[in-house]
């Protein structure tokens, strides 16, 4: 190939043809590099299909397996699988299936007794405990949950996300739908998100719904108690500098209906703090919850720092603070390590009572559930992500250790903190997390919980 001299009259300001054409015999290092790069790019086998197709993977599978354990009491196995289909027009449809298999024994809420203690449910099922043992109820449960989500981009700046979920376990059913819209503004340096959701849940306690603050032998209904949840969210994320992304969001959640924990009881104690009787708990039928979240993502040369702070308050009198930090450390061969530390503290709900004094008039509302009591916790954990050479999939392993503590004797309840869902996966651990007074230090009782999650993602 060569440039020929022009037979046509050239303009006065035109350059004379480059003559003679320079041979390509001795290309410069720059040209050798370009040629090598072009050869790599163009030298791969031509893509056989002449049909237009998206170049990005059109399916993605994400699978995780969670193992949750508390000393001696409860173990949970939770496998999940999420399948995402990316369509050529930018839409994405994603579905997830989750199973929780839980076995163990859950404290009922009653305080350990110096005397044999009988616990009952409204159904008449009775267990009797020897003295000095934390009253528990043996259980095993299987929960199945599924959700669907649909992303619909409209133009380049707007996206709508529609979601629906259904979950079912022995005594609880949840059906919900959500919708959110996000809009990029300020030359895409900021994104505004507005969303909302509704749940229509049903509670159908085994043995029927007990009469509140009763001895548990009387049943209000053997049917389904309704619980409605409405959530609204508004958020703003903003690129501050090329390395720094900040986010602010506010959520409000209104729960109405049957919000009491049907199996929870409160001990009636005498003047020596000995349990002499017990009552079922009772909570208000309305729970107005609000949370404000500030988050920051900062990119260093290679690594990334994530910091979050969350403040939560509700009309039950619970206030909580959560501070969360992660550091993503890039390792060779596409691997990374993500250490994680989190601190959480909350104040008790106004009707939280570890126990009720014998002879006092019963309050209208009362619960001994530690999840709405004074509570603090520290989580320390790390995620390690890596790829197996030759495979497109990515593995990650997350290990976390949570220590929660509160005033002595406060861990007779069960479950993760109920005032705040900041701990991640309130649904997943709602039935799973069982409190165990594993050690006492000073005026506090503490609880230790370990979690291991193995995840695998592959586009195909």
């Amino acid at each position: 190939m060569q440039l020929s001299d022009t037979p046509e009259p050239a303009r006065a300001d035109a350059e004379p043809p480059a003559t003679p054409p320079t041979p390509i015999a001795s290309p410069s290092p720059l040209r050798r590099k370009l040629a090598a790069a072009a050869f790599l790019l163009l030298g791969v086998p031509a893509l056989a299909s002449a049909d237009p197709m998206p170049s990005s993977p059109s399916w993605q599978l994400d699978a995780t397996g969670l193992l949750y354990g508390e000393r001696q009491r409860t173990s949970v196995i939770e496998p999940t699988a999420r399948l995402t289909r990316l369509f050529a027009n930018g839409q994405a449809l994603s579905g997830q299936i989750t199973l929780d298999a839980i076995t163990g024994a859950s404290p009922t809420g009653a305080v350990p007794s110096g005397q044999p203690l009988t616990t009952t449910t409204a159904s008449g099922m009775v267990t009797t405990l020897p003295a000095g043992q934390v009253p528990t109820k043996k259980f095993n449960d299987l929960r199945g949950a599924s959700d669907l989500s649909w992303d619909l981009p409209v133009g380049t700046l707007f996206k709508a996300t529609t979601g629906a979920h259904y979950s079912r376990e022995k005594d609880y059913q949840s059906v919900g739908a959500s919708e959110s819209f996000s809009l990029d503004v300020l030359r895409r340096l900021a994104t505004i998100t507005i969303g909302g959701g509704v749940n229509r849940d049903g509670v159908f306690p085994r043995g029927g719904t007990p009469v509140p603050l009763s001895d548990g032998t009387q049943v209000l209904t053997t049917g389904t108690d309704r619980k409605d949840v409405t959530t609204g969210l508004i958020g703003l994320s903003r690129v501050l500098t090329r390395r720094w992304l900040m986010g602010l969001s506010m959520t409000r959640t209104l729960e109405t209906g049957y919000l009491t924990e049907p199996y929870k009881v409160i001990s009636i104690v005498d003047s020596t703090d000995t349990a002499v009787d017990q009552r079922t708990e009772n909570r208000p039928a309305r729970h107005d919850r609000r949370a404000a979240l500030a988050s920051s993502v900062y990119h260093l040369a290679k690594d990334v720092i994530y910091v979050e702070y969350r403040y939560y308050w509700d009309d039950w009198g619970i206030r909580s603070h959560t501070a969360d930090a992660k550091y993503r450390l890039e390792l060779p061969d596409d691997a990374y390590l993500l250490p994680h530390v989190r601190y959480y503290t909350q104040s008790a709900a106004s009707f939280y009572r570890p126990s009720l004094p014998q002879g006092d008039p019963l309050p209208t509302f009362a619960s001994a559930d530690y999840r709405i009591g004074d509570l603090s916790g520290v989580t320390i954990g790390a995620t390690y992500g890596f790829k197996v050479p030759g495979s497109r999939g990515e593995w990650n392993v997350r290990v976390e250790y949570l220590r929660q503590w509160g005033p002595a004797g406060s861990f007779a309840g069960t479950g993760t903190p109920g005032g705040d869902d900041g701990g991640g996966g309130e649904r997943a651990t709602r039935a799973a997390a069982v409190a165990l007074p594993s050690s006492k230090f000073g005026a506090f009782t503490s609880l230790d919980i370990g979690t291991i999650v193995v995840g695998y993602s592959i586009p195909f």
Partner: protein
Amino acid sequence: MPASSRAGADVVRIDDAFLGRFMAFGGPCDVLIDTDDRAEAETAITVVQREASRIEHAFSRYRTDNIVHRINHAEGASIIVDEETALLLDYAATCHEVSGGLFDITSGVLRRAWTFDGGDRVPSREALARLLPLVGWHRARWQRPRLTLPAGTQIDFGGIGKEYAVDRAAAQIGNATPRAALVNFGGDLYATGLRRRDRPWSVGLDDPARSGEATLDRFELERGGMATSGDARRFVMHEGRRLGHILNPRTGWPIEGAPRSITVVGPTCLEAGTLATLAYLQGPNARAFLTEHGAEFRIVD
């Protein structure tokens, strides 16, 4: 059945060849097939058009359903890219390296501040200062196949995508016809070989002063790529100076002092186009750059 209904391209006979024309990459794309067989030409033109459409679809920054959109909206998250995207990113990384950072696929955001419509609007210093922090391939983490861009940073294959498509499409013509062909996407072109009776392809050089109306020169091309960089159609006037649309990623300001048009010949359209762009980025030193690197070129000042 005419090709226009099958592939969307207009096919006409020109002398002893067929010309197919369709729109892609924001402009007209021409395919010349050196044959007298219309059906054969239509098949070959369809192959070229499909490949152009595929690549434009896959790598255009204007679409919302492709990998570029996913990368540009990852907000700091890592994106795992497919093999073809990885190869393009590798190539772009090489261009960035050999140009000392002047060739930068993340510089596209600077165009938000500029309007190259031949008018005289230039952005304020503040407007550029706000965008410059988003520019810089050296701040991207490209660990094949994982790309992580700082939030707000975006990539744009505009500097290489069209040339890549020319080479890719031309390589597929052999599946449709044994005849020689010339692929020309908006001035970036590739010839697959000599025409019948050992004639080379004839290519006119557009006069940047009267773009689209006059040619300055005529080249003969046998086999290989040719591409032109310049500011013929997209520029802005500022204080009596003509500023082209090719921006310096360090300053956000157009490269000044470069020739009106730089045409380079190379073994592939991709290399020709890259060399022409790299030369343009040298501004007044474009000629010295091409000479130093032993390129075949034609410059119009």
